[in-house]
């Protein structure tokens, strides 16, 4: 039986390692046919801002990891609309290549549909 797994991504990129290591875990799981869905909420929505250029702080762009997700079978990412509104962001202004972003108003109902939640 395949489990339904949700990766809950609540951290902004670059300031700490959790955003990157979370995405690495999702990619590794997907490579093993354990495809997780993603829900970006809280500061995690900042991972989705376009035009990140972290070369000046000596880091690799996290967007490459995000854009690799569809290659590993991750078909979409959910985004918490309340978190976007709190941060003055518009879903239309966010984009991650071939990864469709799906707005979610009721994250409680979404979380309830999963067997396991990995928090990052």
């Amino acid at each position: 039986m395949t489990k339904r797994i949700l990766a809950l991504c609540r951290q902004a990129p670059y300031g700490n390692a959790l955003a990157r290591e979370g995405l690495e875990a999702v990619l590794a799981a997907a490579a093993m046919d354990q495809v997780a869905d993603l829900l970006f909420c809280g500061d995690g929505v900042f991972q989705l801002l376009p035009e990140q250029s972290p070369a000046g702080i000596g880091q690799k762009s996290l967007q490459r990891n995000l854009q690799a997700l569809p290659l590993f079978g991750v078909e979409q990412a959910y985004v918490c609309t309340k978190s976007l509104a709190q941060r003055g962001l518009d879903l239309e202004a966010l984009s991650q290549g071939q990864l469709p972003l799906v707005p979610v108003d009721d994250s409680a109902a979404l979380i309830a549909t999963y067997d396991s939640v990995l928090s990052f």
Partner: protein
Amino acid sequence: MSLHIVSKSPFSSTALSDCLDAFAEGDALLLIEDGVYALSGRMSERPAVQPVYCLAADAAARGLQIPDSVTAVDDAGWVALCAEHNPVVSWFK
């Protein structure tokens, strides 16, 4: 139904408020570590959600009283809550 485990103070982290935004009817909230500082705020008089549990050892360590509206649990109770609910969602930053 989900068990939400919050381990950061609501006065320094959005962990609790983000958790409450994702809290469904039938879910349960467990306060551990610095999450127990929620007991010194509004939560002590009127919890935002029900039911709320709190690790007794973490509250005692910090000199906090557990109000009647919150259920104290020991480590065995912590395990039992995790066994009774699914998924278990940790809110730690």
